[in-house]
Structures are given as C-alpha cells and as structure tokens.
C-alpha cells in the first residue's frame, strides 16, 4: 500500500476569487491525499469551499477564480503545469465529475445519446456508432430502464433521478481513475437518493475508481466514504478515517456539528439539540487565527487568534489531523454537552381536525382558445383524516409531489377543499377562502415558510413587516404599542432590537428565518404550519432555529404542523407523524409507533433511505425501484404499488387498500395482513458491538 502513488494529492492548495470587494480567499491551505480505490468525503456547510476544491482539481476556475498557491498532483504530475491540451485529455477521461443539478448539467438541446457519445469519440477515438453502443451499455450498467429510448431522449424528457444516472454514466464512460461527486443527490428525493448512493457504492466496488464525495450531509458520507475532510469557512479543520472522525473527533466544530444534528438518540425533551452559537463568517470577514474562534466555547484569546493555524497530527494516528490549537487540552471523553432537559408537554384538547379532506385540481390542457380541450384532474390530496391537539407537534412527512404544500394552501384558505372537512376549533375552514375568514381565524392559523430568501419582502424593513401583521390582526394600533410588540417579538426570537430598522438583505438566512417565526407568532396563533422551516439553512444554524421554534411553541402551547421530508428531524421533534405519498396518508401514529414495526412498506423504505450520521446504528438495506409517479397520473389501487417490494399483484394494483388500525391511533393503509405488518423487523437497530 505504501508503495502506491496517490491518485490525487493536493498540497497547501490556496484558491481565491477576485470580486469587486477584492480578493476572496475561498480555500486556504488545503491538503488531501487520495489513494487508488479510496473514497474521500468532503463535508461542510454552504460556502465553505467544497465545490471550489472540486473545480480546482479540474482546473476549471471560471473567469474570476484562480489557484494562488500550492500543488495539485494527479498521478504524481502537477496539474498546474499542464498545458490546456493535456488538461483536456485528462478531463472527462481520467478525472470525471458528477454535479449537483443534473438537469442544468445536461445540454437541453442535444439528445442524451449525442452527449454521451462525445466522451468516447473524443477520448478513445471511437466512431459515432461504436460510441453509441458503448453509451447504451453504460446506461444499462447504471440501471436505467430502456437505454435505447433514453439515448434518443432529450434531458427534459426523463426524471431527475434518471438524469443523475445519465450524468454518472457519462462520467464512467472512459473508466476514469478519479470521480468527483459534488452533492450528487442533494436535488433528489430521499428514496431516489438511496438508489443513487447504492449505485455509487457499487461503482467504487466494481471499477475500483477513487472518489471524492462532496456533501453537506454527514450521514451520506458515512455510507459512501473511507476517509473524511471536514471543512469550515475555507479551511479543512479535521481530516481522518471515517471512524476516527465520527467517534473520536478532535475539533470543536466537528463536535458541534454532530451535536446539532438530530441523531437517533436525540429527543426534544430529554436530550435537546445543542446548537452551535453564531453564524458562518463571510469569506472577507473571517477572524484572525482560528476561523471557528467566535463560535467556539474553548476559544482562548492570545492562542487561538494569534496566527494562521496549521494542521496538527493527532498523536497515535498519523492520518488524523486537526486544525485546532487546543485539541490536546480538551477533555474529549467528557460527554458532549447536551441542552437542558425540559419536562415533556402535555397535549391539550383537539384544536384542528381534518376529515376526509380532498383537493383535486382540474388542469386544462388549453387556454382561452382551446375550448373543449380535455381537462385532467390532479388528485393533490385524497381523503386526508387526522387531528392535532393543543401544544402538540404533528409532522407531515413525504417526498415531492405528495401534496404537503397543497394541504397547507387549503388550510390557509388560498384554495378551497374539494370535499371533506377542516375544523379549527369549531370553525369550518375547508371552503372558507381567506378573504371570508375573520381576523381571529386568520391570526389563529399562521405559517412559517421554507425559503429564508423568499420569506421576507426585500423592499421593506423588518420592523415594518412585523408591524403590519400586528396592525392587521388588531393586536395593537398605535405606533408606540406596535413598536413595543415588534421589539418584544425580536427579543423572543433572540434578535437585537435594532434589526427592526434593517432590510432583509442585511440578514443571514437563519436570522431571516427567525424574523419569519416572529411574524408567524405576532398574532398569537393557536396553530402554526411550519413548511420545512430549516431545510434551507446551514446545518450548524438549523439546530438553533429548530430549538427556538419549539421553545416558542412550548411557551404558547401552540399546535404545530411541521412539514418535512427529513425523518431524522421529525423523529426528534414530532409527537405524532403523518406519512403521505401521492396525496394520501399512508401511515399515521405517534412518533414511537411510526418508527417501529409494524411499518407501512413506504415508511419502512423511507426510514431505510434516510442517511444517519451515527456509526453506532445499523440500518436495513432497502432501495426502492423507480421514481415517484406523477400526481396527475397516479397508479391504480395502492398509490405505492409501482414501487412497493411487498406488492401483491392483482390486489394492490387494482384495489385501494384498507386502513389497518393498530394500538390506539396507529393507522396503516395497506393490503398486507396485520400479522405480516407486525412481523416486520426494525429498520434501525443498534450495532451489536456498541449495544453493550
């Protein structure tokens, strides 16, 4: 092993972008050594320089970027000294890349066949027909159905998951030595992601390709890589084998990261998440010395901020290095700090109850002039039935197209329900558009939105936007009273009062989301719908916002409907869970019930698909085939029948399954016998050696 030359070696790599604000050092002093067949993960939050590293390895820095120092050795040769032609011959043949957004990475005006064939034509000198034949073979290898048809298709004609498989096939066509994967699954649904991850693992096993896998998700890295680099604000802060970094981390940031993601043991009452305080520094506002200094609880003035920090090897393990001056002094065995335990909340009476709520959209295939054009119905929500109690958190879980947003729209009165009932207290909301609702009803039901960049109007100050809600709901009228309440709300969401005068662009994502929360709670709502409120935020900020949301909810005994696709978060904070698929509720019950057998087959697959960043648990391996069908054309019978591993032909694809009830309120929509359902094994179980 020691005899081998590394496939890739980065030495003291420094990369800068040149902008109007001057030189921005995007990556500083980056080192990496990748041996043949090895998979190396790079994990870090948005803007920490992961993509920059990948593109630098490709020597593709765009117009305003440049490698300002260090070396990149590919098979022992410095790529920085290569000519454009030499680089061209390496790109796509020896080093290939897979991108985050498959749709944008494929040329919309060329057939997939043409785009694939280019690789062997230009690198191996094959003829067009030979190249196409090779492309077809490769498409079959990445397990795309009907490769011949796909060769002739344009990118927009296939689904996102299929596009990503095409991009992977393109990367593999020349049997590269090194594969760079830049967040290859971030744009995909979890169950589709699981399929791609499985494919990637098989590739590395079959072809022996070395890989660099970039992700912000520690769980994914655990499932795919041997070694790991943790990056923070342009620097690698910790490098080591997966097990070392996961179980014996030696950098306060890594530790903070693990403390702020909900792992299976976390619990919102007994073991709340421990958020990393503060926020990521902007690249040109980095502190002197340790970049993590301002957020680090071990910070020691004069030491941590004295000089640019080098990487220190961790004694006893050459391959484990950290960029921390004090790592040797810190008592790492002391338990991770945990947040204060809080008493569990007692749920009150039912506040919101939904009965057989159905929402169908009619989409016309023509416009003004296509009269008589066929109309199709999209069944966005089918017979939703569930209820939520005071102070309870009900999570609605599902992948894209499952009808989460439609449900929120009906609830908020922007769409009429086609059928069924929605009762808030004793007000029927289903067919009451928002214009007809009373002020109290509206104030009682508020929403926190997903995208922090969209949630606030960029043209108005924070104070004006919160103030408007206060006036609108009649909480207060006079200027002073309103201001007073605005300030109080800002206090509640832990923002400084002078933010009232700021415009949204002066706030970070997490801060905007806090304002969004303040706005939602301005009218003392009894029910708050939170639509993926943290999924667009940086991991280290997510925990703080989640905790804040739950604290306010706890204080006001608000009912929260938490819409999410992330089962780990849901497991952490929900009291009850509703699992949706293609507009229907597949399973509902308490968190405990949903996370343990009996499972609905879809829940089971979903649980297995969610990557968990914990070496101590074992997951059963279930990968669903295919993709989520379109809601405008759902399968007959059980909506899940096209992908279900347990599918009973002749029954499941014909007849709508019955609701099977277990325990008090645990319902599963499935044809399988109760005994079969109960006989399922738990998906997540402690690993034998760690179980003690």
């Amino acid at each position: 092993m020691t005899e081998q030359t590394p496939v890739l070696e980065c030495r003291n790599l420094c990369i800068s972008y040149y902008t109007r604000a001057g030189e921005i050092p995007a990556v500083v002093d980056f080192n990496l050594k990748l041996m043949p067949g090895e998979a190396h993960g790079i994990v870090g939050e948005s803007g920490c320089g992961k993509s920059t590293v990948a593109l630098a390895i490709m020597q593709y820095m765009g117009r305003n970027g440049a490698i300002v120092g260090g070396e990149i050795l590919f098979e022992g040769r410095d790529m920085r000294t290569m000519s454009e032609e030499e680089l061209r011959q390496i790109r796509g043949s020896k080093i290939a890349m897979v991108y985050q957004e498959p749709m944008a990475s494929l040329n919309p005006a060329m057939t997939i066949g043409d785009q694939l064939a280019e690789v062997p034509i230009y690198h191996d000198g094959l003829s067009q027909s030979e190249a196409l034949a090779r492309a077809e073979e490769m498409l079959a290898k990445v397990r795309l159905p009907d490769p011949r048809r796909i060769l002739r298709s344009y990118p927009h004609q296939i689904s996102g998951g299929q596009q990503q498989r095409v991009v992977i096939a393109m990367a593999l066509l020349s049997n590269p030595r090194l594969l760079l994967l830049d967040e290859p699954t971030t744009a995909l649904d979890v169950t589709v992601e699981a399929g791609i991850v499985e494919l990637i693992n098989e590739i590395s096993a079959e072809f022996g390709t070395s890989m660099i896998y970039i992700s912000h998700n520690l769980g994914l890295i655990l499932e795919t890589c041997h070694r790991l680099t943790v990056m923070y604000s342009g620097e690698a802060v910790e490098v080591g084998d997966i097990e070392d970094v996961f179980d014996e981390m030696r950098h306060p940031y890594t530790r903070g990261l693990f403390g702020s993601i909900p792992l299976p043991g976390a619990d919102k009452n007994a073991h709340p998440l421990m958020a990393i305080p503060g926020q990521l520094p902007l690249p040109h506002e980095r502190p002197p010395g340790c970049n993590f200094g301002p957020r680090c609880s071990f910070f020691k003035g004069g030491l941590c901020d004295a000089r640019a920090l080098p990487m220190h090897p961790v004694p006893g393990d050459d391959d484990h290095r950290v960029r921390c001056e004090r790592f040797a002094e810190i008592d790492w065995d002391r338990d991770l700090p945990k947040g204060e335990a809080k008493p569990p909340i007692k749920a009150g009476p039912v506040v919101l109850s939904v009965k057989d709520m159905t929402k169908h959209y009619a989409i016309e295939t023509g416009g003004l002039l296509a009269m008589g054009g066929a109309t199709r119905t999209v069944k966005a929500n089918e017979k939703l039935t569930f209820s939520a109690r005071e102070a309870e958190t009900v999570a609605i879980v599902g992948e894209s197209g499952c009808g989460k947003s439609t449900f929120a729209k009906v609830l908020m009165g922007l769409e009429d329900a086609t059928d069924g009932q929605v009762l808030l207290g004793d007000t029927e909301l289903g067919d009451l558009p928002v214009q007809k609702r009373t002020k109290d009803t509206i104030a009682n039901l508020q929403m926190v939105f997903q995208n922090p960049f969209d949630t606030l109007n960029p043209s108005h100050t924070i104070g004006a936007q919160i103030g408007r809600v206060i006036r609108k709901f009649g909480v207060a009228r006079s200027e002073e009273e309103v201001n007073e309440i605005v300030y109080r709300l800002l206090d509640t969401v832990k923002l400084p009062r002078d933010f009232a005068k700021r415009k949204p662009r002066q706030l970070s994502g997490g801060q905007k989301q806090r304002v969004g929360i303040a706005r939602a709670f301005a009218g003392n709502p009894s029910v708050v719908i939170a639509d993926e409120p943290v999924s667009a935020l940086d991991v280290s900020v997510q925990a703080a916002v989640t905790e804040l949301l739950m604290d306010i909810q706890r204080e006001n005994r608000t009912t929260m409907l938490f819409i999410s696709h992330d089962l780990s978060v849901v497991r952490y904070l929900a009291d009850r869970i509703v699992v949706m698929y293609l507009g229907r509720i597949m399973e509902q019950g308490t968190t405990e019930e949903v996370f343990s057998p009996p499972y609905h087959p879809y829940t089971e697959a979903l649980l297995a698909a969610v990557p968990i960043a914990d070496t101590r648990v074992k997951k059963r391996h279930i990968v669903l085939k295919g993709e989520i069908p379109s809601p405008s054309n759902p399968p007959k019978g059980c909506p899940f029948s096209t992908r279900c591993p347990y599918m009973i032909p002749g029954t499941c694809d014909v007849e709508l399954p019955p609701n099977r009830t277990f325990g008090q309120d645990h319902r599963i929509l499935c044809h399988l016998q109760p005994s079969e359902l109960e006989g399922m094994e738990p998906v997540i179980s402690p690993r034998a050696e760690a179980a003690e």
Partner: protein
Amino acid sequence: MLKLILRRLLQMLLIMAVASLLLFAIFDTPEFKKRLAVQELGGFAVSALTEESYNAWLAEKGLDVPFHTRYLNWVGDILQGDMGFSYEKNRPVGPLLLDRLANTGILAFFVFALMIPLSLVLGILAGMKEGSVQDRTISFLSVFTTSIPEIATAILLTVVLSLGLGWLPAKAAMINGFSFRELLLPVLTLVIYDFGYVARMTRASMAEVMTSQYIRTAVLKGLPYRRVVMKHALRNALIAPFTLIVLQLNWLLSGVVVVEVFFEYDGFGKLLLEAALFPDVEVVQACTLVAVAVAVLSQIISDIGYTFLNPRIRFA
C-alpha cells in the same frame, strides 16, 4: 406541438380581425367622412353643400349604411384584392401598394442580408468571452450605433459619404430606374441602426449560455473548445436571436418610414407617410393593414421557429 401552432394561428387571426376593426373604426368618424368628401369634391364644394346633399353624397358612396355592414364590405373588398382608391396618386391602392412593397422588399432584403451575419458574428464573439476586450469593444460599438437614431445616422452618412466624399448619391429616388448605388445609403442606415440591438441580444444570450452548467459539463468532459462553442453553445445561444431577427421585420417597417422619406426612396413607408399627411384615407388604411399583417405573420414565424429550435417545447 401542432396544437400549439394552431392555437397561435387562431390567436393571430383574432388579432388581425380586431386590428382591422380598430383601424376601420378610427377612420370611420364623421370627421373623416368629411375629409373623404373634401378629397373627392374639393374643400370649397363641400363647404357649400347643404346637409341634404351631403347626405346624398354619403348615400351614393355607401357611407350611410350601418357600421358593421360597411366594415364587412370593406373586409370583403380587401379579401378580393380591392383596397380602395388613392386620391392623391389617382390610382387604385392595390397595385400602388404592391409596387411600393416590392421596393421596400428589396431594401429589406439587403438590410437583412447584411445585418444578420454581422450582428450574429459580433454578438457571438462578444458573448463568448464576457468581459474581455473584444466583448467590451463590440458592446460599446453596438450601444453607440443604436443610440444614434436613424434620422441622425442618415444625416451623418449622407454628409460624409455623399456631400463630403461624393462617393454615393445623396438620394435614392431612382429617377433613372433602379440603381444599387442609390440604395446603399438607406441600406447602410438601417443596418447600422439595427445591428447593434440584435448583436446585444445575441451577446446576452451567448454569455448566459457560456456560463451555464452544461457548458461547464462539456468543458470538463474534455471536449476541444471549438466543439464546446460550435456544438454545445451556439445551438442554445441562437434560439433567442433567431426569434428576434424575425421580429425585426416588424421593427424594420417602422424604420423604413424615416429612411425612405429622408432618401426619397419610393417605398412603403414613404407611401404611408404621404398618405397620412395628404390625407389619403384609404391608402393609410390599406398600408396599416398590410403592416399589421406582416407583423403578425412574422410573429407566427418566430413562434413556430422557436418551438422547432427548442426541444424543450418541441417534445413537451
């Protein structure tokens, strides 16, 4: 896709119908009827007319029947090729218009023949390397030329090339039959004014494509730069300029008015203006209708072209 095109066609027909109705209504006020009478009988005669005899005149001309009947008659006549009569030129409008349109057609042909290659090449060169010297030079050149209105361009060209250097004739009246030399100044004026706009749009489109992720993919696939530009970028970058160029036909119909009047070239634009100033009502109507028809037609061509060029729509 066929449905899409059919829908567009239907929409366009509707637009034509409304536009013609509008046009007819505008020129159907009592005031304009009076103008008609003045044209035919002379101003003095009309002012001497009694109410009754004026009404009789209206009846004789068929101007007293209800509006919609007259409109339908008018449309019917036009569809049969009868576009009315020009009092000023003392000719039926149909052949007159055809003559002038042919002249303008010649002008437009040369304008497009020069402008399209010029603007596309410059636009692509500029957009290929955004921010480079060649980009900034071309961009500035195109802002500069589009900033000089046609009338000013015409003056500058005439003053320099004709009055100053004496290379080209100052007017394009074609008194001694068709002369390409006379046509040159009008063509140059229109090209100089128009190419900048198309070039800028082409540049924007190209620049956007060049920064797109699929171009990055193509480069990182190890394709030669030529192939990246020719095969991956151009195809996508030219979709927008194509539709734009077709729509320039509409723009050109505006531009020719000034140029033809300034250079005294007997084309459609000059005809329209003379008719408007005279005022020769039926000529104005016919000219406008033709202009709208051309505009609408170019819109359809542009739409169909767009759907053909863009696989995202073609195979939707």
